[in-house]
């Protein structure tokens, strides 16, 4: 089996340089690659084009990159919860491209599945459709949307093995598997790294062929954006 293990986030991102396009898995703060983000912050990589469904919050996740002005452009579907983001956007320091969430996911998957483009009805008749090819199938209009590739995809899984196979836990799966498929180089950080053979092949969500480097992350904060609870009766 091919061994994909690197020792830590610093080694994993060793060849990430200014100006790259990076995909970051996660939805909100759920399932984000915390260790890789921290390593990018520490290394002060600049002019990043960041493809991520969301933009983190002010002091966590992608917010940490924004604070240091490391992001040139965000490609996202929803960028709500971040005051520094808003300030940089309004001041023109930051470019933003907003994409429907399903289109974003499917464009990543298209890259991983070797499909150069896909058709989706999302955005037909709206400003999202501007400049895009529209095609009618069976009476319904669809936009032609191109596959998304990124120089690097940084994803977070629950468990992974030395061969790069990944298993995600609950809704922290979200964008991680589709982005893992779309990176020219895909880096996976996992909460628990095990030997090849320790995972049931039927349980694997992302086959190791899509993963170039894997390491066991540390000090996961796994911050919750909105704690909502019910009282016990």
């Amino acid at each position: 089996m091919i061994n994909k293990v690197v020792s830590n986030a610093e080694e994993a991102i060793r060849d990430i340089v200014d100006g790259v396009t990076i995909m970051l898995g996660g939805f909100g703060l759920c399932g984000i690659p915390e260790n890789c983000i921290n390593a990018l912050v520490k290394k002060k990589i600049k002019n990043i084009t960041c493809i991520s469904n969301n933009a983190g919050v002010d002091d966590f996740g992608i917010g940490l990159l924004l604070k240091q002005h490391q992001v040139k452009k965000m490609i996202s579907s929803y960028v709500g919860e971040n005051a520094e983001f808003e300030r940089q956007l309004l001041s023109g320091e930051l470019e933003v491209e907003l994409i429907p969430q399903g289109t974003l996911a499917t464009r990543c998957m298209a890259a991983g599945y070797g499909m150069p483009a896909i058709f989706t009805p999302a955005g037909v008749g709206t400003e999202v459709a501007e400049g895009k090819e529209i095609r009618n199938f069976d009476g319904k209009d669809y936009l032609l949307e191109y596959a998304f590739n990124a120089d690097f995809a940084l994803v977070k899984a629950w468990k992974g093995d030395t061969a790069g196979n990944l298993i995600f836990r609950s809704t922290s799966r979200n964008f991680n598997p589709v982005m893992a498929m779309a990176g020219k180089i895909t880096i996976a950080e996992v909460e628990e790294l095990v030997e090849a053979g320790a995972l049931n092949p039927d349980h694997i969500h992302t086959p190791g062929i899509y993963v170039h480097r894997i390491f066991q992350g540390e000090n996961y904060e796994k911050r919750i954006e909105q704690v909502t609870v019910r009282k016990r009766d």
Partner: protein
Amino acid sequence: MLDKEGIAKRIAKEIKDGYYVNLGIGIPTLVANYIPEGINVVLQSENGLLGMGPFPFEGEEDADLINAGKQTITTLPGSSIFDSAMSFGMIRSQKVDLTILGAMEVSENGDIANWKIPGKMVKGMGGAMDLVASAKNIIVAMQHINKHGESKLLPNCTLPLTGIKCIKKIVTELAVLDILPEGGFKLLERAPGVTVEFIQQSTLGKLIVEGEIPEMKLD
């Protein structure tokens, strides 16, 4: 006139046994609280979950288990987890029977605007454009009139659109209305104590009133 809970309560009556339902943020989320006993419904959360349950008990929150509104939730027996591509795959292929979402404006031909106000910070459309473009049945939960006293049921939307010709039904604090395939808001029910005349005054788009309009039954 209905409050938010009342709107949610009335919408819950539209949910049929065996439905897979996607609930948007805001009033739609409240609908889950009013699904009648004996009606089996599975809630889809577009971040990648079928079988969404209620909020967890205090102390049992799981950072890995959230809904599309980023709130901590639980799963119900029979739930399943999937990635974002499959989630929107099942939305696009119309396996989700009903989508309920909020709106800033709806036009008489079924267009909806709910994601962007020019001059204000734009947060993004999230999954709304995918949902409205794909869902086979969409109900909008919204206020009939905005805080400036202006109608939100219009001949044409004035805000940037989220989707076109997609809304089938609207439930507001004043009324239940269908949008007809040929255009126009067809008044179906009045909220308790609300007159047809008041609904007419509150609707800038073409309102179609035929025969007696019954008052809503909420229980």
